[in-house]
């Protein structure tokens, strides 16, 4: 990883870590609800009151292991989760005019202590099994699946085309939430557990897939999403029209991108906001998010919207880009038109509303398309609206040898959703292979 030294300074922790005594005071506030709503709201169902109680009682190892038992990426989830709509949003204190427990910061406190003490991931079974599972993609879903299987004694291998593991955890989460280094360090524990990582391997063709099927007993698709959508307007092939995820990945793991004085960000999802905030922190004086609809329809979480305003990002609503104007010096402006929203949400331009947004750079954050090439190479796996169709409790696809989870299944949600998917698939694969082995007499018989 070649992160520039200036990045750590520019992207300091949005939520700084707790000092030990502050953590205990906060932990003591927890009511220890029965069948706690925070635990129910967490996609990985971390036993929140239990891990918080252990912090209060100074049992930090027990606290971290409680978290990791449910969520092997407990560290990154404590930093990247939109807890306002998950555990902290479910805290009963909201209903009696009290601040919710700061669950995310407490979770980070326990996980930081665990990493600082050199903690390692425990095995769930000491039995070493012969069955091999391939996980395609090294994002949170595959990591959770592989870790779960390895903890149960299976041989798990992760295939990843990029040089670093973690997927969006490493390359795509705003650095002030989750530094790339923290993501990679967390994954190091999974490597130490015995999961094999094969980097620089692109699985794309039917031949690639066929080779994996011969080598492995089960396969997990944690491939995420495909290429970014393009603007589809004249001039969108200019080199200063850049994809938000690439922009974020570049500042996090490579030479920081040069930002223009004025930057237009197209789209109003959480990625758009991460990119706009990053553009500000990297030096752009004027950053605006342009969105076709209104704040009400904005896909981003409202706390992300509030945060972006604090970072100095402007929002232009009901604006549609029409054309990019550039000369030898680069992009000069983005020609836009105001739109009105009609019945059923149909957009139509407001006559005579054309204006030019002066900018030298345009960042696109209008979503990604599915990885259709790879997914269509896998025989028997069904797609629905571009997403892999699975049995939700197990993640099993229509082809019983294949399981899938994460963004390629849910269309793009959070790290914690991917972890939950991967874990469920890991358990299901393990149970399936154990049943198969019992039916065949011994684990080795599977390979005979």
């Amino acid at each position, binding site marked *: 990883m070649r992160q520039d030294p200036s990045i750590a300074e520019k992207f300091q922790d949005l939520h700084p870590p707790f000092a030990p005594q502050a953590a205990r005071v906060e932990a003591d506030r927890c*009511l220890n609800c029965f069948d706690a709503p925070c635990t*129910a709201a967490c*996609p990985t169902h971390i036993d929140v009151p239990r891990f918080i109680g252990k912090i209060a009682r100074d049992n930090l190892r027990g606290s971290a292991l409680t978290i990791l038992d449910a969520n092997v990426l407990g560290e990154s989830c404590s930093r990247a989760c939109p807890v306002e*709509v998950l555990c902290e949003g479910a805290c*009963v204190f909201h209903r009696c005019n009290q601040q919710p427990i700061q669950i995310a910061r407490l979770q980070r406190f326990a996980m930081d202590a665990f990493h600082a003490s050199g903690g390692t991931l425990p095995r769930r079974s000491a039995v070493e099994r012969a069955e091999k599972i391939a996980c395609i993609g090294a994002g949170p879903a595959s990591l959770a699946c592989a870790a779960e299987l390895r903890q149960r004694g299976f041989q798990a291998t992760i295939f990843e085309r990029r040089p670093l593991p973690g997927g969006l955890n490493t390359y795509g989460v705003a650095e002030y939430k989750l530094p790339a280094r923290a993501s990679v360090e967390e994954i190091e524990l999974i490597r130490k557990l015995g999961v094999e990582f094969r980097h620089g391997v692109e699985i794309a063709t039917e031949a690639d897939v066929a080779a994996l099927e011969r080598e492995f007993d089960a396969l997990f698709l944690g491939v995420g999403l495909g290429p970014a959508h393009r603007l589809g307007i004249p001039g969108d092939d200019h080199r200063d029209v850049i994809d938000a995820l690439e922009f974020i990945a570049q500042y996090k793991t490579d030479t920081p991108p040069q930002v223009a004085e004025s930057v237009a960000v197209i789209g109003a999802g959480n990625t758009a906001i991460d990119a706009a905030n990053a553009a500000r922190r990297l030096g752009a004086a004027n950053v605006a998010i342009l969105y076709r609809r209104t704040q009400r329809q*904005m896909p981003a979480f*409202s706390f992300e919207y509030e945060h972006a305003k604090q970072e100095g990002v402007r929002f232009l609503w009901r604006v549609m880009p029409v054309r990019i104007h550039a000369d030898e010096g680069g992009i000069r402006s983005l020609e836009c038109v105001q739109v009105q929203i009609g019945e059923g949400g149909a957009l139509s331009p407001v006559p005579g509303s054309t204006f030019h947004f002066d900018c030298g750079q345009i960042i696109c954050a209008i979503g990604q398309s599915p990885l259709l090439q790879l997914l269509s190479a896998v025989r028997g796996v069904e797609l629905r609206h571009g997403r892999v169709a699975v049995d939700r409790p197990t993640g099993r696809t229509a082809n019983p040898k294949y399981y899938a989870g994460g963004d390629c299944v849910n269309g793009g949600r959070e790290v914690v959703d991917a972890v*939950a998917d991967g874990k469920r698939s890991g358990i299901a694969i393990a149970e399936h292979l154990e049943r198969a082995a019992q039916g065949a007499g011994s684990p080795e018989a599977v390979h005979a």
Partner: protein
Amino acid sequence: MPENGSRPQVEPDLTVNFAGIRSPNPFWLASAPPTNSGEQVMRAFDAGWGGAVWKTIGEPIVNVSSRYSSIDWNGQRMMGLNNIELISDRPLEDNLREIAEVKKRYPRHAVVASLMVESKREAWHTIVAQAEDAGADGLELNFGCPHGMSERGMGSAVGQVPEYTEMITAWVKEKAKTPVIVKLTPNIADITVIARAAKRGGADAVSAINTINSITGIDLDTFIPRPNVDGKSSHGGYCGPAVRPIALNMVQQVASDPEAALPISGIGGIANWQDAAEFILLGCGTVQVCTAVMHYGYRIVEDMIDGLTNWMRQKGFATIEDFRGLSVGRVTEWKHLNLSYKIVARIDEAKCIGCELCYIACWDGAHQCIHLDRVSGPVDGHDVELHTPPAAIEAATRASIAVTPIPKLDGHGPATGATPLARIPRVDETECVGCNLCSLVCPVEQCITMVEVETGKGPETWEERTSSQGGAKECAPPGLTTQRS
């Protein structure tokens, strides 16, 4: 009881005359580090304290370091404090000179000399004369200190033996011209035995309680109990909020015993005006404070005075005597309680935040009559009821599939709305025994209230029930009972 609002406003008068010792209010500092010197006592009087029992004087001693240790609870410091400090380590003549100086400057405040000397008549006669010559308004005999001094035949070594207590009290009374207060130790099976002995010895008053024998804790890295004195510890005296219920019980026992009844100065975990009011309601004429001052300083007396005054005004009490002892008769033996009285828990659904602590407390710690499964139809009753047990409820949650909501698609935010009905427990009132536990664990004020229900039965006590069945059954250990058939 006076009715609120029905009587004219009175300006409450906090002055007290405790066994002949007058003070501007009932708030005294207990004999302890806050009363170690004249300079401290004068600052305390300036802050508003009505009296001070001087740190025990006697033959000077040598102290150790460290001396204190404490119990924290849920982030709150010093719920209980433990000490192994001995009596005053300052020269006797310094203490006497300062007592005289304080009395000269603060003639209206109460200065009580706490005394402890070896168990010799002459020694007691001498110290009594010295304290009274210095101007002390009264004497408190320290028969309670449970650590250090007791090994030398003083403190609780005296207070645990009724004959010694009576004898030394009588020696003091031979000489004393001012009121004599005997400070009682709680480290005894029945505190009234010692209180009676003090009364027989001629004591004018008692104070209760002294500190409780304790080991507060052990350092889990060094295995050395606290407080650590070069690798060893010693049992100490426990005080602070943790001991208040024990103190209230012992005060009530003394106050309700005709053979022990003397004016009582209440001691034990008093930290605010409510605590003080409770001790006075159980009969105390003054209260003594130590730990709370050691924690926060003399300044806490401001709200003790202000809060008690406002409460007395609200209740229509003009003087301390108007409410002193009002609750003594409300404590009775169990056999006199009304068996026909029944209350049940009511959960205010509008206030419930859905923590379900009442549910798990009732299931695991009480009588399994609070339920989460809301059912329609007549299921209440004494027939077999099938409910989902706690472990199954938690297992169902863990097995559920939850996803991060996307505002545009799923559109729900923080739990600010009403608590979902599925999370609001219900009480099976026919099964509820009215134990109070759920209302004690509920974190929301007035959410769970205990409501009286009509049983249709007239009042009946255990004593009445058993006497109507041919005489009360005695509770005796097995083998000693005479009523076995």
